[in-house]
């Protein structure tokens, strides 16, 4: 029995394709017949990602450049689906409290301002077509320490929730997916203690980090027309890692 997720022929822009999560999402969408434009900040990495994922083409961009979002939107020429997956690209444990403003702003731009601006740039085309999907990958809601990613995550979630209202009647949904520790990400390599400590009562209830595909499947589901009544939510895909109960 083959499930039809009704995505054939749609177009998608997927950012963060220098990361395993962005790549897994590109591949999963392409597997459903979506024409994917992959976005990454390094030409060599991007070329490899396009080849590996079956994306239609790639756009290389420095996320921190002024006008980078507008440039991507223009080169893409519109999209039915936007997946923002720049979260966690620069995750660093124990950010110093005297972190330089420029460093903080650079990461905040990559993880919040760029996805926000790109979404706003692509939305008019979606609302005009009366169909669209925005899915944003966000970091944790339970900060282990000081990190720009947590601030960006809070901002993304509140922005996404607010934005679901003005676009909800035009057939466009916007949701967040919140991965836990995923194999091959920078976070998984930096938070190794979460994986290895307390083996009798592991921090990750499922017992091990997730696969990038676990995240990608949920993104595909939220992009499907079957999920049209889901908007403004944050979906954790974390093997039970997060502690919050609502």
């Amino acid at each position, binding site marked *: 029995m083959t499930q039809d997720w009704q995505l054939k022929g749609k177009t998608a822009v997927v950012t963060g394709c220098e990361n395993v999560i962005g790549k897994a999402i590109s591949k999963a969408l392409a597997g459903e017949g979506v024409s994917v434009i992959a976005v990454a900040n390094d030409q060599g990495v991007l070329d490899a990602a396009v080849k590996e994922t079956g994306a239609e083409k790639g756009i290389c961009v420095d996320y921190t450049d002024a006008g980078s979002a507008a440039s991507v939107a223009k080169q893409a020429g519109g999209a039915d689906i936007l997946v923002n997956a720049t979260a966690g690209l620069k995750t660093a444990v124990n950010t110093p409290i005297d972190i330089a403003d420029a460093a903080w702003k650079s990461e905040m731009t990559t993880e919040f301002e760029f996805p926000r601006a790109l979404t706003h740039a692509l939305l008019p085309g979606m609302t005009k077509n009366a169909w669209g999907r925005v899915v944003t990958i966000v970091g944790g809601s339970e900060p282990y320490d000081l990190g720009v990613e947590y601030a960006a995550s809070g901002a993304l979630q509140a922005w996404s929730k607010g934005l679901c*209202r003005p676009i*909800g*009647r035009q057939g466009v*949904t916007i949701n967040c997916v919140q991965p836990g520790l995923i194999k091959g990400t920078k976070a998984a390599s930096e938070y190794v203690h979460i994986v290895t400590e307390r083996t009798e009562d592991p921090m990750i209830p499922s017992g091990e980090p997730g696969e990038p595909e676990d995240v990608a*499947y949920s993104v595909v*589901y939220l992009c499907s027309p079957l999920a049209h009544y*889901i908007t403004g939510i*944050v979906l*954790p895909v974390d093997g039970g890692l997060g502690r919050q*109960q609502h």
Partner: protein
Amino acid sequence: MGMELQLEGRTALVTGASQGIGRGSAKCLAAAGVKVLLSARRTNLLDELADEIEAEGGPRPEVVGADLLAPRAAYKLKDDALKILGHVDILVNSAGRSKNPDAPGNMPFDAPDEIWDTEMLINYGVIRQLSLALVPSMVEQKYGRIINITGKTEPRDMRTANPPKAAVHGWAKGLSRQIARHNVTVNSIPPGKIVSEQILRNYTKEEMDHTSKWIATGGFGVAEDIGHLVTFLSSPLARYITGAVIPVDGGFRRYAY
């Protein structure tokens, strides 16, 4: 290669299957090839649903009558389910109600204990009993999906449904941590405004129009909107989602995270 649900041959017990979200969930699961055991008080409605599912090409569901407010009803239903299905891969706890039909919607502070106890039992106690009764066999078979249909956690006023549905969220989160290593997941879906027998009984047309103004997508949902997510969560594709509360509400609730 496309994303396959891999649910053919799996089994599911769906409570509250005679109407609304339970009915929609049973239909979506059966459409994915799941053998469903339909449970509710009104077995005539379950028989009709079984006919409908079979006519649409799904595996013919089994039917079992159960009044979950009867003494030890959850334990009897567990025994019936294991006997009829052989084993249970998926449990959809959909039986429940937003209010006691004999009580006011907005409860006075001096309302009798009996009303609270009954609503706590039907919306939380029975879900806990039935789930825990089936968990050992799910752990044993290394596959289990428990999906609770709950309610929003933003109380508008003093509703009997809010505390038990919040209790389910907290209990499910705790349970999820204990059993995740055995490929048994527990998740909750708080629905928004979904057109159902209960909603049509409790809302006038004017009230539905007024409420729709507060829904981001502009209107009420249908049972299948929940059923599709129930089916996805039942699949091996969703193995890394557990302890989650996933609203399907068209953007109705307000809190961001």
